[in-house]
């Protein structure tokens, strides 16, 4: 990627004016020029700080809740992503090491210290942990992975960072004319960086809304109806009763779908933006209070700040300053910084590298738009088969319950063994594997391997699994006549999943 590093960038192009088009882009027209127009970096720098804080907080929280031990150290077996079976947890307490890296990297990202290395270290550690076991997949983990990937290409330590301070000091020591040194807090970045983050956040909301356009959500208010009635049990009367009522379930279902589908556009429109952001905060505060969804509300509420004008942190600081000034008898001078020229960082000036950046962005977002739609390539309902389910922002649209028994049969002796998933797996794995067909296939392979290791030779493994989706009566999900241990992973639809 032809993006300049932060250290080199401080010597980059100097644009005139505030947020206007770059001087060198006068001849350039169209999308490329718009994408490389300099914008105030304040919003992106604030995003870096908030992302770092979230990364730090998430990792600390994960460790503090004992999940490293429960999810990665205690289980004797882990499911695997196709092609990533080689990713295994580190032995014993070493599994805390990637979380220590995430904590340190989160702090470094926040402070903007060795930014690129910090993002890379965080990304590698986070991805490693996530790749260990697909039964722990969560949408916001995937979102964090994508954001980390995005941050890797953006020089977001160009200001408000230790890196920028170090670079400024270095430059100042090299030249006696310190007045020509760029102002770290008035740096500009190419617009594509801001729009890429906006597009990523917008896609999450939009496809989460699309995923809600299904009969269960719209016609039965499921699974919200079930979840709300469960939450209602803990609420005092009559609030608990109302929370469990049909009206509230349907109201929240439709409001939730409308919110997800439209909120990116409301956030983009200047006039509706403040109210839309208030709705974002309200929505995530409500879902965070009602359901155990961890840091997801924080991640989305803070990420949605990228929709505000690029100078919003500076504007907010200015508003605060003015607010204080209004209540103060002292006069506060307007800082000259607000009108200082912008210094563009991280933008290639040649046409060819710019086109490469645009092509890479187009390819990335085409993939991001295609992944949530890929379930149309598979027969059946994605919530049922879970084929094309992950990486598609199917956020809070599924409540599955299931019971699965695995029957191992030695074809030579006719001996049979009845194996319950919870006798082999940890509780979360067992629960997910009782409803997820692909994980059932992997469990069947595990059982076959264990029996082979015990000297039984090749055994057959059959799953008798019944699943209830969103309150529908439980029904068989796997063809009980199929030897799952003989089924390979495949790109296409699995023929042994019953409709």
């Amino acid at each position, binding site marked *: 990627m032809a993006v300049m590093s932060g250290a080199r960038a401080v010597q980059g192009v100097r644009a005139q004016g505030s947020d206007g088009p770059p001087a060198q882009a006068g001849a350039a027209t169209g999308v490329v020029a718009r994408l490389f127009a300099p914008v105030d970096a304040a919003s992106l720098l604030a995003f870096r700080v908030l992302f770092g804080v979230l990364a730090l907080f998430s990792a600390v929280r994960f460790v503090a809740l004992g999940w490293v031990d429960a999810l990665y150290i205690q289980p004797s077996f882990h499911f695997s992503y196709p092609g990533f079976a080689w990713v295994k947890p580190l032995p014993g307490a070493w599994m805390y090491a990637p979380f220590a890296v995430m904590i340190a990297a989160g702090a470094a990202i926040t402070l903007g210290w060795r930014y690129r290395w910090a993002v890379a270290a965080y990304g590698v550690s986070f991805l490693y942990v996530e790749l260990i076991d697909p039964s722990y997949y969560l949408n916001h983990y995937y979102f964090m992975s994508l954001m980390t990937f995005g941050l890797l290409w953006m020089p977001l330590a160009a200001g408000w960072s230790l890196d920028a301070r170090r670079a400024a000091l270095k430059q100042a020591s090299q030249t006696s004319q310190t007045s020509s040194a760029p102002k770290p807090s008035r740096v500009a970045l190419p617009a594509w960086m801001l729009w890429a983050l906006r597009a990523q956040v917008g896609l999450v909301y939009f496809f989460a809304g699309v995923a809600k356009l299904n009969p269960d959500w719209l016609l039965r208010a499921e699974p919200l109806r079930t979840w709300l009635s469960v939450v209602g049990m803990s609420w005092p009367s009559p609030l608990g009763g109302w*929370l469990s009522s049909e009206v509230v379930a349907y109201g929240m279902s439709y409001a939730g779908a409308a919110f997800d589908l439209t909120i990116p556009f409301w956030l983009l429109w200047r006039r509706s933006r403040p109210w839309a952001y208030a709705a974002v905060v309200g929505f995530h505060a409500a879902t965070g209070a009602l359901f155990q969804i961890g840091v997801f509300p924080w991640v989305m509420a803070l990420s949605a700040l990228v929709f505000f004008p690029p100078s919003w942190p500076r504007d907010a600081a200015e508003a605060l300053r003015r607010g204080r000034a209004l209540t103060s008898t002292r006069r506060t001078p307007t800082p000259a910084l607000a009108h200082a020229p912008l210094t563009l960082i991280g933008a290639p000036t040649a046409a060819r590298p710019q086109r490469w950046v645009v092509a890479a962005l187009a390819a990335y977002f085409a993939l991001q738009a295609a992944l949530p739609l890929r379930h149309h390539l598979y027969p059946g309902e994605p919530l049922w088969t879970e084929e094309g389910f992950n990486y598609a922002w199917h956020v809070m649209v599924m409540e599955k319950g299931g019971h699965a028994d695995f029957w191992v049969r030695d074809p030579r002796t006719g001996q049979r063994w009845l194996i319950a998933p919870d006798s082999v797996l940890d509780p979360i794995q067992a629960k997910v594997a009782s409803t997820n067909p692909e994980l059932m296939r992997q469990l069947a392979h595990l059982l076959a391997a264990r029996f082979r290791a015990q000297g039984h030779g090749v055994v057959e493994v059959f799953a008798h699994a019944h699943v209830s989706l969103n309150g529908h*009566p439980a029904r068989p999900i796997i063809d009980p006549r199929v030897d799952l241990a003989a089924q390979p992973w495949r790109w296409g639809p699995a023929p042994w999943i019953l409709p």
Partner: protein
Amino acid sequence: MMQRELRLRGRALRVAACWVVAAALAVAGMGSWVGCEAPASQDSAPRMEGLVEGVISPGYEALAESVGGLSQASQALCAGPDAQGLAAAQATWSVARARWKEADAFYFGPAKVARARVSFDWTTLSPEKVEALIAGDGLLTAEALAQAPADAGGLLAVEYLLFDGDRAEGEALAAFVRDSAGGGRRCGYLLGVVGALDAQAAAIVTAWSPTGEDFGAELTSAGKGSVAYATAREAVSEVVNSLIFTVEDAANLYLGVALRLDGAATLDPTTLPSYRSGGSLEDVAAALRGAYAVYIGGWQGRGGEGVSAWVVDRAPDVDARILLRFAQAQEAVAALSGPLSEVVVKNPAGVQAAFDAIKALQTALEADLSPLLGVSLTFNDNDGD
């Protein structure tokens, strides 16, 4: 400049105030509208109270009473070992065993903390250890035997002492007769083990009693100050999971083993719990009785505030299906009689039918009931989105 800013702030405040009023009116309007058809309160407290008072406390009281009966019958037997006394002791053992298996369906809270399953019902008994302890010179008081190895105590140790099992016919009684003439350590062991069980059952009753430690209040105040259960869902999950585990064990540990679904080439009767008394099927029936009581909220088929009440509120069809599965499972087990190791040879189809019926019940509880009541890990133990 300042006046303009003050004007702007005033306007912003007026707009905000308008929105707050509008929102309040909307909520109030919706509240009155919803109020017309407000459903019954979802408050878990009354139902938990019903479950505690209608099922759990009476269940443990019945267990304590039955162990008390076993203690008395054991003392009578030891006072003068004869066939009549042995038969009486055996009958009281069967009652205590049934009460224990019934209580399996609500094995949580104080019983679980005290690891009552270990002291009451360690599934693999070691007769060698029992005989070694009897032959030794250690203390045989209830307190001492409460610390004995799990595979040398509990109801299955008492069963071993009272029933012939795979020993020669009449051997159980003969051993007591010999013992009465030889120091009485066998009787001491019997009375010590039963005494330990008696003390533990009484402690559990006290722990659940409102005049004792009142653990029931933890369930009824779940999500509202309970120390044990931060949310009502946690308490409901505890109840439902315990119910499901009981049903699963009834299928897998009894009928599944008898059908050799553990891969055994031939059935080893000693792997069946209660095989010495021939009461394995009674264990299964009792476990289903206890599970049914928790589900409907009362004993002897009298429903109260049980799990069913929550299910009816949300999905009456699921409730009907579960009740049907309970009936089919109980009927299939009732159709079998005799020692399970013999029944499975004479009537394997019947045992298979009972196994299938209990599995169907387990499926209904796990796949239909659990998600309905939020008894899943979707939003538990790890975040979910």
